[in-house]
Every structure is written in C-alpha cells, then in structure tokens.
C-alpha cells in the first residue's frame, strides 16, 4: 500500500543521508546533543535550583564572575551559575518548539487538506483565513496578545502557532490538490469509501512526508523566533530559565558581564543550526526537485 511505501522512502532517505551527507551527520549530532542536554540537564547541572532561578546563599561573593573552572559559563548578576541556567533552558526550549511545530502542523494539515478536498466555498474561506494569518508576523501578534492576555507560556504559544500554521496550510493545500486529482483517490470516492477514510489514508498520508521534513527544519526557525519574542519580554515570564529570557536579563549587563547573554545565544544558534541542517539534508535526499519550490519552502 502507498503508506508503507512512504515510510520506506523516508527511512531510506534517512539512511542515504546518513551515509552520504556530512550536513546530515552534523545536524543529527547537534540535534541529539541538545536533546540529550534537555533530558539529562536537570540531572547533570551543578546547581539545579539556581538553574530554575533561585539565588544562592553565597550570592554576595559570587556575582558577576567570568567563566572559570568552577563556573564554566560564569555567574550572573545575582550570583547564579549560568551553566545550570542554560542546561535548564534546553528542556524549556525543546518543549516550546515541539509544541509549536506539532500544533501548527496539525492545524495546517487539517486546514490545507480540507480546503483541497472540498473545494468550493470551503476552499475560498479557508484560503482567505490562511492569507490573513500569513500576513501577521509572530512578534506583532505577541505584542497584542501580551497586552490582552499578559505574560506567560500561553502568549508565546498562541502567537507562534497562529503565525506558523498558515505555512503548513498552504503547503498542504498545494500538495493535497495534486493528490486529490489522482485516479485512485477518485476511484475510492466513487466506490463509496467514506470521506474520512479517503482523507486520512490517501490524501493525508501522501503529503505527510515532505511536510514533515519541513517541520524538522522549522524546529530551528521557531526557536529563533521564540527566543526573539522572549528576549523582548513579550512571551515567557522573566523568571523562567528560557534562553531568550536569560539573554534579556544579561542585556543590562552586557558591558560588564557579557557571558550572561552570549552563552544562551550560542546555544540557540547551535540548536537552530542542528535542526536546520538535519531538515535540509533530508529534504535533499527525498526529492532534489523540492528545493526549487522556494515559494513554499523557506
């Protein structure tokens, strides 16, 4: 069946990429490194409570220390160990991006597939909705939501999901449109197979592959945007150990204690790079021609 073929293709692509592409190896290495940090972080961190924001009892002696053997990433203005904070931040970063990408993917797929399948007024309405949200960048949404809903995880989540889902919707729509035209789908509909089954088994499954690969690349891009939103104080609350927030805290002290902002930024870079390389390499293996559809892929 077609779905089995798809899975095989994906795993084949992964294997090919692993063998052939350095980019894939580097990307996979970086991504798994970050994943490892996220999982093991809390266990490995030398001062986990400081990582979560607590000020140590010996703060007065330890504020603003540059990176040293004892504190590999230095201490911040309140004496907290920056390494611990960055480690705690890994978990938060991954939670944010996976939630956002998963939710946007889900919504986008549903919208795009329904629009392609049902044509007519539904298609127009859903496309219109997609365009409206496409025109809104996350950061401006985050401002409006911040004023409306206050700071917190929900603000970050909503602003990012609301600005990312249209990309998936548009991509799914274009793909689904071509799949829906295919003979076997028409035959299935004529044969009376319920819409639900057709949609799930034939349409959705076929377009899943390229969209999934894009989602992997997007994990990196979402992290960049989420960090920027947190950095400006529009998303998470200031005592959360998020990389963007730590960088914002350190911004006031950029001239005297630059390591507070520099290290989290470095980790953001590495994580985004990792996912981006991974996604790129996979995409190239799956279909070199996909690259050219730069209008959809970005």
């Amino acid at each position, binding site marked *: 069946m077609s779905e089995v073929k798809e899975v095989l293709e994906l795993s084949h692509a992964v294997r090919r990429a692993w063998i052939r592409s350095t980019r894939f190896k580097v990307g996979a290495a970086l991504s798994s490194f970050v994943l490892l940090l996220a999982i093991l972080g809390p266990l490995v961190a030398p001062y986990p409570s400081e990582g979560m*924001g607590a000020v140590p009892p010996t703060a007065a002696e330890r504020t603003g220390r540059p990176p040293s053997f004892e504190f590999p990433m230095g201490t911040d203005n*309140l004496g907290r160990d920056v390494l611990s904070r960055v480690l705690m931040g890994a978990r938060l970063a991954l939670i944010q991006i996976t939630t956002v990408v998963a939710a946007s993917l889900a919504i986008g797929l549903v919208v795009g597939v329904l629009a392609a399948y049902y044509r007519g007024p539904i298609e127009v309405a859903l496309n219109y909705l997609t365009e409206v949200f496409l025109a809104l960048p996350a950061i401006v949404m985050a401002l409006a939501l911040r004023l409306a809903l206050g700071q917190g995880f929900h603000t970050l989540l909503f602003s990012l999901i609301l600005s990312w889902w249209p990309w998936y919707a548009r991509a799914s729509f274009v793909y689904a449109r071509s799949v829906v035209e295919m003979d076997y789908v028409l035959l299935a509909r004529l044969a009376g197979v319920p819409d639900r089954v057709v949609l799930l088994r034939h349409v959705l499954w076929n377009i899943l592959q390229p969209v999934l690969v894009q989602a992997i690349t997007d994990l990196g891009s979402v992290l960049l945007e989420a960090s920027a939103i947190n950095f400006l104080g529009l998303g998470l609350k200031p*005592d959360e150990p998020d990389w963007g927030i730590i960088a914002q805290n350190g911004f006031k002290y*950029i001239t005297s204690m630059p390591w507070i902002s520099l290290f989290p930024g470095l980790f953001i870079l590495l994580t985004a790079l990792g996912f981006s390389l991974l996604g790129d390499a996979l995409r190239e293996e799956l279909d070199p021609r996909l690259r050219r559809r730069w209008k959809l892929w970005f």
Partner: protein
Amino acid sequence: MRRGVLLAGIVAAVVAAAVLAYFFVYLPSQQRGKIKVVVYAYLDRITGIDPSIEDDTGIPVIGVVYETLVRYDPATGDVVPVLAESWEHSEDGTLWTLRLRRGVVFHDGTPFNSTAVKLSIERAKGIYEKFGRGSGYIWSSVEEVEIVDEYTVNIRLSYPTRLDLMAAAIYSAYIFSPSALAKAGVDSPLDPELESWFNQGNDAGSGPYYIEYYSPESEVRLRKFEKWWGWSLVNNPDAPDVVVIKIMTDPLSQYNGLLAEEVHIASSVPRANVGDLASRGFKVLNVTLFHNYLLLFNIRRYPTNITSFRLAVIHAIPWEELVQVALRGFGRVGKGLIPHGFPGYDERLAYKYDLTLAREYLQESGVPKGTTIEFVYQGEYEENEAFAQLLKSRLAEIGITVELKPLPWIAVKDAGKAVWEDADRAPHLIISDWWPTIPSPYEFLALLHSTNTEWNWAGYNNAEFDELLDKAYELEGEDYELALQLYARAQKMVFDEGVAVNLWDEVRPFVVSSRVDLPEDALNPLYIYVIRFELVKVRD
C-alpha cells in the same frame, strides 16, 4: 566651439553654486554650533508640570522652572531664602510675616509680588481641599494670606506650624504668575482647565530656565531665562543655554548615551557599569537621597494578617546581601521607615537576617509550609527585580513560596489601592518607593495613616497610630521636640508589628561627562532628581 562655451557655462554655474552654498549654508551652520547644551537623562516619564498639583515625576522640570519661597538645606536642617528674602513670626507662631524679593520677574515678564504668592498658596491649598489632589496639605494650617503691600505678606495660621519648612516643600509650594489664568482663559484658579493648560507644556514660572519644548514621554527642552534675578549672585557665565531633559526609560540607553556623548548627565545607568564609566574618565557623584523603598504587608489578607508570619518574612530578608547583590553597593540598609539623615531617623529600628528566628516565627504563626504569597513590584526598576529574586530564594528556604508579579507603575498603584476595596485581590507584599514633600517625619509615617487610601497599601488601620501622627503634626510648630518624640513612638509601633519595613535608602550615582561640571550643591537630597542647572558649568 559651442561645446566649449557650454562647458565653461556649466563650470561657472557649479562654482557659483558652491560659493553661494559656502556662504549661505555652510558658514552659518558652523557659527550656530556655539550654543551650550546639556542633556540630562531621566528615567521616568514626566507625569505633569502643574506647579500646584504635580506630586510625582514632574519634579526635575518644575524644580528648575519654578521657585519656592525658601529652600531646605539638609546640612543645617534649616531653610535659605529664595523668593522670600526674610520672615518673622509672632510669639505664638500663628502670624508669619514674609518680605519678598524685589526685582524678580516671571518668564513672560510679569512682575513677582504678593499677589502671585497669595494666588499660588491659595490655589495649592484649595485644590487639595476640594479635589484631594496635589500636596496642598502643607498649607492646611493657613487661614488667611493677607497682602500688606507689594512685597510684604502676612500669613495667619489656625495653629502654629513650621511654615518655613512647609514653604520649602518640593511639591505644591511653587509660585506662579497670575497671568496664567488669563492665558488659560479661566476665571477661577480652581478651574480644571488651568491644569490642562499647564500640562500642555505652558509655564508661568520665575526660575532660571523656561520651557521651550514639552513632550512628557520623550523630552523636555529648557532654555536659559536671561532675566532671572539670580544670575549675578551665582556668577556662572558657563551655565548651559539649553537643557534637554531626555526621558530614557532603559538604563542601558543612558549608559550608551554617555559613551556616545549624547547624554552629559545620567541619573540611572546600570549600577554594574558605574565602575566602567569611572575608568573611562566620567565623574561619578554618589548622592544619598531621601528616597527609600518600603516593603508593605497586606494586613487584611491571610497569611500576612498574622503578625508572627510577617515577622517571619521580615527576618528572612537578607539586609546586607541586599545592598551588595541587588544594589551593587549603591544603597544603605534601611532602618525603621525613615531614611538616613532625615528628621526622625532612628537607627535602632533594625531587623536582623536570621533564618532560624524566621522559622520559629513561621511555626508560631501556624501558617503551613508551601503557602504561596503574591509579591507585586515595579518591574522596570532593576533593584526591585533583583531584590524580588533574592527574597523569593530566601523565603523558599523556610518553606514559603513567592509568586513574583512585576508590573508597570500604574498597575502597581492600582494593585496596592485595591486593599481597601477587596483585600483578597491586593497582593500580600508590595514595594512602594517613596520620597518626602517636606522635611518632616510625617511624610513617611503618614503612609500608614488610615485615611490615606491612596498610598496606604498595607490597609493599616490603627486609631492609636493615627492619633499620634495627627497630634505630632499639629505640635511641630509649637513644641518640635515633643512632636519628634511622638513620631518616634509611632514609628516603633509599626516596627514592632512589622507592618512595613524600609528595605534600603537610595544612593544614586550621577554620572557626568567630562565636558560638564556638576558641583555638589547643584544636587539636594530633598529636591530629588532636581539639578540646579544655574550652577552647572559647560566646558568646550
């Protein structure tokens, strides 16, 4: 042949244009560069500049544009003459006679005389009594202001007070020109239209500088008032011609501004950068201001309504660490409610940082471990943020969870005031940073007076305390020593019950560019954030 002529013509035209441009555009622009400009970076947006009503962040403007009758000198504890040249009071202290300075004009040319004084005092008092706004309470003892002649005023009081100290207040004691009424198109000084007129940027003052441009959210530009009476006394030919008070709400921008030579005097650079600036050749003046940060407990809400719980929290405050870590050394540990050097300061009213004692108090209070309390503070101040994190960590050690809620100033005020409507909506802990209007202990203690619903965010309602305060205030004119004793008793009461504590007294580092000379007497701890620019020298 024709091409040659054309070419010559073009060349001639270009040369002519260049010459014209040189004389009419370039040279004049070079000549213009000789005005002396001082840019003063200020952290908060200006809340207003009405001389009778303003009681908040408008102070750096009104303190320069307007003048009071006298000025307070913290070194001597006494006042020096400004618009009032001399004064005397009767035996019983209820009749004060003021002799006014001659030769003073307001910025629009109208002369300064007793009419202006009468109007200014009556307006400040009237608006406070009628609308409850401003600081006109300083004139509450005034029964009548009588004009004896153009430069003499008799002020009759209903009970004796230190009128000279009142007239030195930083708010609502400014003298403005009566011509403002006609300009604003109002008949009565109590007409709200007059306030709007002032807050649009109009000024009716007599000070060394007048307002040239007013944009309360970004900058206020002042220009030298050549006809000010004090220039001959001050003898400072290098005083700035233009002063730009620039609103810079981000401390790092102030730092950048100094380095980029955009800003010449900065009041709020990030404390961690002060050392860096000093090493680059900037001058640093550390001024201890009568500005402190009070932690108020909501005594109407569980669990902060239990005295032993409050004492538990208070003993978990790391006093020394607070100054070192949160303020980076720019502060003094707070005692009682009143700051260092201010009348009524009592250094015995100090708590210790003792977690064991704190745990004992906690147990005594019966409040279970893991209870959560809310803490609201103005999030834009880095000191508050650092202190909040510190307190949260220390309280976590004794088992109390703190939910931090940094808010903008407007929201903090609303949150605090809510204690009177619905105490459960108001936070448990809230920071109110406070500075006094007049040099009297009343200013700090009145924060907890039961009728002060605007600022009494603790919800404290103690009749005995109120009585002490009221009596002491009335007694200041008659028997100052006794008044101070009563104030001391009131302060001790609050201390024992742990209703509100003074976290720290502010030491503000004013960082000054090497092009500007800021003498020490241009700053006064009472007239907070006011820089007397007439004493500032600009080098070139």
